[in-house]
Each structure stands twice: as C-alpha cells, then as structure tokens.
C-alpha cells in the first residue's frame, strides 16, 4: 500500500517533471510544475513531514508558481518554433547519460547498512508545534536572518520591476 502510494506519486512527479521540460507552452510547463509540486507534497506527507507537505502546496504551488504563471502571462511568452536550442538534442542525450550515471553512483555508494536504522519518530513528528518548537529555539538566527532576506527580496523586486528608482 505504502509502496503503491510512493510509486503513484513518484511516477507522476517524474512524468510531470519530464513533461515540463519538454513542453512547448510555458503555461503548460508551469502547470506541470504545479503537478510536480503536488506529488512531492504527497511524498512529504508520506514521510511524516506534515507541515512541510502543506507548505509545499501553499508556498510552491500556491505562491511561487502563481508568480511564474503571472510572469509568463504578463510577458505574453509564446515560444517560437525552435524551443529547444540547436544543440538541445545532444544536450538531452548527455543529460540522460548523466542521469544514469548519477543514479548508479547513488546506489553504488549508498551503503544502507551504515545508516542508523529508522527510528519510530515521536508522536508529533513533523507537526506544526514540533517544527515551531525547533524553529524558534535552535533555528532562531536563521529565522531572523530570513526576515532580512525577505526584506532584501522586497526591495530587490521593487527596484527591478519599477523602472523609476
């Protein structure tokens, strides 16, 4: 059952990922990307990362991809005939070769036995409160720095988007 869910989500994630880079229409690409995010969220949920799963949908699918969609629509991007660059075919072949290499390398290198055995996580593993507890104590500094990062993002985006600054 669990495996089935994994394969289902995994397959769709892969499929949408590949379809995304193949698609000619940027809007379709973006939507496929959303599907991909969704599948990953499913996998996160399966892994017990409940908050992250929801945030994956909320932030990635609900916010970032909307922005991407907006930009696509806003720039009125429609691909010309040759979307994939001239050396694209070669690149793809290369890419797939690299892909195979990476996977073999992972499996070869991975010595599962060296990893500690999976523990039964705590009851509230991945829950909102658990994450919150860690985030606002151990990860205090990154958290506060994030605010500065976001501030920088605001300023940056405004500067970039509004010409008269």
């Amino acid at each position, binding site marked *: 059952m669990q495996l089935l869910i994994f394969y289902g989500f995994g397959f769709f994630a892969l499929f949408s990922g590949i379809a995304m880079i193949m698609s000619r229409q940027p809007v379709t690409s973006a939507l496929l990307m959303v599907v991909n995010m969704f599948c990953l969220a499913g996998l996160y949920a399966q892994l017990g990362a409940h908050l*992250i799963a929801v945030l994956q949908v909320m932030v990635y699918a609900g916010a970032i991809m909307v922005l991407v969609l907006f930009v696509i629509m806003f720039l009125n991007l429609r691909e010309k005939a040759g*979307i994939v660059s001239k050396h694209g075919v070669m690149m793809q072949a290369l890419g797939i070769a690299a892909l195979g290499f990476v996977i073999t390398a992972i499996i070869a290198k991975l010595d599962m036995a060296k990893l500690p055995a999976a523990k039964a996580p705590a009851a509230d593993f991945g829950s909102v409160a658990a*994450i919150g507890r860690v985030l606002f104590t151990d990860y205090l500094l990154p958290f506060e720095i994030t605010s500065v990062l976001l501030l920088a993002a605001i300023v940056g985006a405004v500067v970039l988007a509004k010409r008269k600054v």
Partner: protein
Amino acid sequence: MEMPVPLHHYLILSGILFSVGVVGVLSRRNAIIIYMCIELMLNAVNLTLIAFSRQLGDLNGQLFTFMVMAVAAAEAAVGLGIIIALFRNRQSVDVDDVNLLKG
C-alpha cells in the same frame, strides 16, 4: 519501526528529478523554464532532506527544507524580477539572447 518505503527509493527518485532539472537547465533557452528547472532541482534536494529526516527521526532536515522554501520564495521574487528586467531590455527571455559575455 521500519520506514514503509525504503530510503533509497526516495533517494533514487530525487536523483532522477535532479537530473531532469539539470537536463532542463542545459537544454532549454527560455529563462522561465530554466528557472522552473532550478526549482525542480531544489525540490529534489528537499525530498532527500525530508527522507533522511524521516530515516533519522530528526527534525533538522525538515527545518532545512523550511528554510529552502523561504529562500526559494525570495529567489522567485528577485529572480523573476531579473527576468522581467531582462525582458525589458532585450524583448526576450531567451538566455541565448541575453548572453552578457557576447555583449
């Protein structure tokens, strides 16, 4: 208790997704698609983090993902801002057209 799905399944999936992202970045010329491919790569990494977090029963992996998301959001805002700025100057989001080295 064992994980219902062994860890390496997730790792392989994430590896493939990452490669797909790499292929996309290398083969596409549209800056927005490239941007999405980068997001895909980030997500692949996130998957690994979360899988390990589950394996080790440790929340740090999830916290990492959390931060990655925050960064990704900031990146989206600025990155797409840059794409718009590029478009504004070049009337195109084709990375071949905006090769700064070519001038």
